């Protein structure tokens, strides 16, 4: 039986995100994308487009200069409980 694929959860702090696009640039699997938010400096903030593609490499979190993005691993048992 194949090892179950790890699941991840990405949290974005939209208050602190400045829309610099670095996280979108460094992500190897295109999990993240930008959405318009005209109140922000660059006019956009990051959002999670496709969390299933996430491999948990942590590059977005390490490369975010604004402490705005966090990657969490979803524990397997918790996932089973939630269905």
């Amino acid at each position, binding site marked *: 039986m194949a090892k179950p694929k790890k699941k991840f959860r990405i949290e974005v702090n939209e208050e602190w995100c*400045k829309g610099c696009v670095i996280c979108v640039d460094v992500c190897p699997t295109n999990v993240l994308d930008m959405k318009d938010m005209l109140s922000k400096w*660059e006019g956009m903030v990051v959002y999670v487009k496709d969390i299933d593609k996430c491999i948990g490499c942590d590059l977005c979190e*390490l*490369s975010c200069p604004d*402490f*705005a993005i966090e990657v969490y691993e979803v524990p397997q048992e918790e996932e089973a409980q939630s269905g």
Partner: protein
Amino acid sequence: MAFNYKPYIREDKFPNIWCPGCGIGILMKAIIRAVHKMGWKREDVALVSGIGCTSRMPGYVNFNTLHTTHGRALAFATGIKHARPDKHVIVVSGDGDALAIGGNHFIHACRRNIDITLIVLNNMIYGMTGGQVSPTTPAGYRASTMPYGNVEPNFDTVNLAIGAGATYVARSTVNNPALMERQIKEGLQNKGFSVIEVVSNCHIQFGRRNKMGDQLVLRHWIKEREVPLRKAKDMSPEELEGKFVIGTFVKKTRPEYTEEYAKMVERVKGASK
């Protein structure tokens, strides 16, 4: 995975002042992770800075922090270390701050081998004061005081630190946050003067004047010029022109200044009895 930065930052000061895409935030996170991995208490760490974009960092981190005059961060840090040798002193400095205005403090701190970790964030320009040419602006690139291209040869922070006698010297870039963290940790572990240069992007002041006004363009420009140390050993000086060699250059031990000073004090006390 999901490092908890909250205990180490002053959340009420956020979001930080730096331009979108600036590498200083990445460096700040790397410093926090390195200190966390060392297992030190926040009260035992002092973060000192001079003037410049980098110098805003002590405002955001929850250590003992000190924001000093231009170029004199190392002088103040030497004082702290001298008064309290049990504390861990980290200095963050820009390229203009550490190498131009504080150049003298830099070489003499290296010479004394005092137990301080200096992190030089090299963004190749004076960012905060309006894009003047700095000692690390690459030749041919424009700055506000060199509108037709820089004609000065530039400093190599690593060779300067090695020549002056630092005991740990390394370089990384903003594209390698994990490497940066590892080097800072090694620098903190080193009992002596450690110099870590971090090549960063200033797309607002440096990039904009050189047709690289986007943070991603400038980050890629840096990435193209990165050469790992083991690869650089086989390359000629001409090939390495304008490249950023990354890796750990020096790791050695030499008598440390505050320990030697304490020994001297003991010796003199013994002699006077």
